[in-house]
């Protein structure tokens, strides 16, 4: 079905089910319980999960297939955000033109940078992309302020023209919408002690992610994808057979740049602001980490990696001492304070520490990334019955001599 083989179809179905039910799956704890701190099913974070998922899927098309490690992918995300916000300012609050423009502009940007950077390979390529991205960031922060609004970030203003919407809408800022359906509209469903948020913006992002995930599967399985894998395994041999690999890698670069631009456009559509730090090397590094953490070269890995990092950033950073005390309140005083002291360095302002430790733990114990972790659990559950099938993708992932 859909041109997918059975295994991919199953994966696609699982991903579809997970994203559609995310508001429920991510809120496993009753909203008034102490554990509600770990609930991630609120619109902003769910949107971030899928948007960064898109970003990472796109990155993986380049890195996972061709092995070219771009260290400047955040530039495309930033360019996408800026184009989208400009569309909201000048044309209309409808998200469609914004997203379309974001994809086109970032694609063009990727074409130029890719054309130049792909003249080199390996680490030299990485540094070229890094240099382009850092230049974009530095200029956006300072000299290009008329276009980017610098440090503050590009925001909507009351006096923006918005040609299609007929200019200013009174005293309050307009909101992003899809033909009248506001992105921030949320319906809340309460079942017993649980409450679930269903947000329009999230479902738009989720639908787009499913579409581009499907596209990514098709690319992975297409002759084009196989050509890209050939670039990774031995580019020299490929060249000797008379094939010019450059057009293929450039196409992969542009496609993954467009994915990044799409993510940037969606980000701006969910929250109309574009800040320069989206293009900084740390942001580029983040998507690299997401992809490796999840499992480079696998289909679902990058999405898992993105979710993992964003979860830590948004959930762990909000746990403060008060929350800790409320968790351990049932313990006797001495033990409560002791436990709070033990946990304290790893949460709240120490969330970076936990993240760093998790990075190390994953790469040491799960060489194939989170995907391998999932497969190990899967194998453990289903016994040795499916050993052959389950091990296939992990095997493939392990074989990637990723650069």
């Amino acid at each position, binding site marked *: 079905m859909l041109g997918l083989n059975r295994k991919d179809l199953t994966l696609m179905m699982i991903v579809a089910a997970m994203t559609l039910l995310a508001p429920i799956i991510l809120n496993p704890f009753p909203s008034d319980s102490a554990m509600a701190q770990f609930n991630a099913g609120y619109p902003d974070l769910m949107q971030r999960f899928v948007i960064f998922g898109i970003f990472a899927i796109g990155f993986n098309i380049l*890195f996972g297939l061709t*092995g070219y*490690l771009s260290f400047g992918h955040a530039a495309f995300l930033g360019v996408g955000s800026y184009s989208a916000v400009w569309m909201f300012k000048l044309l209309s609050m409808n998200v469609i033109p914004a997203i379309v423009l974001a994809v086109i502009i970032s694609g063009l940007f990727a074409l130029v940078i890719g054309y*130049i950077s792909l*003249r*080199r*390979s*390996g*680490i*030299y390529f*990485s*540094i*070229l992309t*890094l*240099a*382009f991205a*850092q*230049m974009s960031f*530095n*200029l956006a922060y*300072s*000299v290009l302020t008329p276009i980017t609004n610098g440090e503050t970030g590009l925001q909507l203003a009351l006096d923006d023209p918005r040609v299609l919407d007929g200019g200013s809408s009174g005293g309050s800022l307009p909101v992003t919408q899809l033909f009248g359906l506001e992105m921030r509209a949320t319906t809340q469903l309460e079942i017993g002690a649980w409450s679930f948020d269903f947000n329009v913006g999230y479902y738009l992002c989720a639908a787009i992610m499913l579409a581009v995930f499907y596209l990514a599967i098709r690319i992975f399985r297409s002759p084009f994808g196989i050509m890209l894998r050939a670039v990774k395994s031995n*580019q020299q041999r490929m060249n000797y057979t008379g094939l010019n690999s450059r057009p293929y890698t450039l196409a992969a670069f542009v496609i993954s740049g467009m994915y990044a631009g799409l993510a940037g456009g969606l980000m701006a559509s969910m929250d109309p602001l574009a800040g320069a730090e989206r293009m900084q*090397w*740390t942001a580029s*590094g983040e998507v*690299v*980490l997401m992809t*490796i*953490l999840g499992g*480079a070269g696998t289909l679902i890995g990058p999405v898992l990696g993105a979710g993992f990092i964003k979860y830590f950033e948004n959930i762990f950073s909000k746990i403060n001492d008060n929350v800790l005390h409320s968790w351990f309140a049932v313990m006797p005083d001495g033990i409560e304070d002791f436990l709070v002291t033990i946990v304290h*360095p790893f949460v709240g302002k*120490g969330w*970076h*520490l936990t*993240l*760093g*430790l*998790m*990075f*190390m733990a*994953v*790469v*040491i114990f799960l*060489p194939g990334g989170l995907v391998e972790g999932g497969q190990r659990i899967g194998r453990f559950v289903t016994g040795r019955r499916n050993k052959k099938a389950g091990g296939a993708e992990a095997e493939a992932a392990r074989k*990637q*001599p*990723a*650069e």
Partner: protein
Amino acid sequence: MDAIILQFLNGLDKGSAYALIALGLTLIFGTLGVVNFAHGALFMIGAFCAVTVQRLLSLSYEVEVEGETDFLGNPMTTDIPYVQSWFGEAIGQGIIDWSVPLAILFAIPVMLIVGFVMERGLIQYFYKRPHADQILVTFGLAIVLQEIIKQIYGANPIPTPAPEAFRGSLDFGVWLGFDPNTIIYPYWRLVYFFFSAFIIAAVFAFLQFTTFGMVVRAGMADRETVGLLGINIDKRFTVMFGIAAAVAGLAGVMYTPINSPNYHMGMDFLVLSFVVVVVGGMGSLPGAVLAGFLLGILQSFASMNWIKDILPGIDQIIIYLVAIAILLTRPRGLLGRKGVMED
């Protein structure tokens, strides 16, 4: 003319910092083939060795001051460092004053141990793993090291002044026949420059003129063959890792009087040091040093006012622009070897 000499001197100084950091990185990255994102953290730990020594030397006991109260109305206390009560006030203060140079003695063993532990405990299992895994594990390690320092010392920069004798600056211009105050240069920056030159020379001499260095160089070129000859190359690589850590750490120690250290200073230098190493060419030690000085000097020139007037913002991007230009004209950087980290 004087402005150009001035910026050239500045560039030498900036460049010596870049070169020193890049030298340590290229020992690990360009030659052992490990993408070490924790290198900035090593530099940072070195800087905090200086802070630690300063703190240790200023360890004090409290004495109540008669008749005065602090802001809460409690009796006022003042701190008297132990070294002052042991050696007398003048000598004690002198020792504290020299804490940064003294920290070198402290930093060398500490950094060697950090390097050994890092290599034996973690990195050695990653020599054969994909570079992607190396990035992830060393980045994780860098975050962890950084956060540990933050938990101990806080996030604020900590002032670590140079000894009194090296404060102030030298009027260089007068020697060259210019008016006073046209070319001035802080003493400590001169010290930094000569210190870097010394360390760089020492590392080169070690690799060039000792048997150990010869084996290591052979190992860099062809690890397997050297191993087949019955030489335990792993042990030597561990030592090299320790030396690289020490070089990064010493760069950090000596840098503290120039800029007050804080816990994320390593990340600020990380990207830059990768750019320097790659522009210099993978696997080339002289390349890294050369690129460090080149980029430092060009960056200084780019911050000159008349250049900024013509090209606003050029100082923000000069390093990256030069990196792109060099990598496009010279495929393997300035002095890179063929086949290192190219696929």
